[in-house]
């Protein structure tokens, strides 16, 4: 195989590791975006039995943002298998107990319900903050764009940039704003 062909082969069939920052993102919409990457259905060479899925590393899962009153209303069902072992846990309670569970359950429920699901979930790596082990960070080869724009806080801008920003008008020094 020539060098060009070898590069093309690696570029086509190499398994990518994508990074997704789900800070202030809707977990339901994020799952809609992540699932095709785990399946491999974002590639034209897709086949369900081809094992063409990629790895996705999800960071900042502690900072996900459900819309509206979902934190109070959404429930997660669990049954231990024993009699009387059914529990309905509210989203905020589950998130307090384990900050990676919500995004994991959302993606698990969105994947196709067949025997390939467990293997695809094994390629999903979720971290509650941005501390990633070096072994995984070395593999990351791409990043997925966030769905909702994350605005920058005013106190995170450097002081001189805030002061030097052009102003049309400013209050006089003895004016009381109240």
């Amino acid at each position: 195989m020539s060098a060009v062909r070898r590069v093309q082969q690696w570029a086509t069939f190499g398994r990518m590791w994508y990074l997704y920052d789900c800070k202030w993102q809707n977990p339901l919409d994020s799952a809609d975006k992540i699932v095709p990457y785990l399946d491999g259905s974002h590639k034209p060479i897709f086949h369900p039995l081809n094992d063409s899925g990629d790895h996705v590393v999800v960071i900042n899962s502690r900072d996900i943002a459900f819309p509206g009153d979902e934190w109070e209303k959404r429930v997660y069902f669990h049954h231990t298998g024993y009699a009387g072992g059914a529990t309905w846990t509210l989203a905020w309670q589950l998130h307090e107990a384990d900050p990676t569970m919500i995004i994991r359950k959302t993606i698990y429920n969105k994947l196709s319900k067949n025997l390939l699901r467990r293997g695809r979930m094994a390629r999903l790596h979720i971290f509650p903050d941005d501390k990633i082990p070096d072994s995984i960070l070395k593999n990351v080869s791409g990043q997925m764009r966030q769905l909702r724009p994350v605005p920058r806080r005013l106190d995170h801008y450097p002081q001189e940039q805030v002061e030097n920003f052009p102003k049309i008008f400013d209050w006089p020094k003895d004016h009381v704003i109240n």
Partner: protein
Amino acid sequence: MFVMWFVKVASSLMRTPKSRTEQHYYGRKQNCYSVAIKYVHRALRYNTLARKLRKNDARELWTTRISAGCTELGTKYPDMKLMMDESSIALDRNMLQNLAIWEPRSFRALALLTKSRQEVGLNSLEGPSPVGVVTRGML
């Protein structure tokens, strides 16, 4: 008095040599004719029904592949279909997915055509009206 219940059980061996259909079945379904024949008939019925399902599955796979290729190039599959209908480009889904895999530059040309079709021209009523023109919402 002890009463025994007699149950009639199919125990006769296959009358024909082992054909392909029931060769890998479990237990008596493999060896006894009257048990196996029901499952063989079911398998043949599934075979005839699957002729249509195979075509549906293939079409679904082609659609997934084409929409994956479209998303990579910044368009969408429904938009591409619309562009092809309007421009009388008679490529079916099979051809399109082959182009997406084996002829990426041709597929990219189709995606660029789709995007150019969606551009709003100067004369169009769809986009924003030119600056400095007061219409009061009437245009």
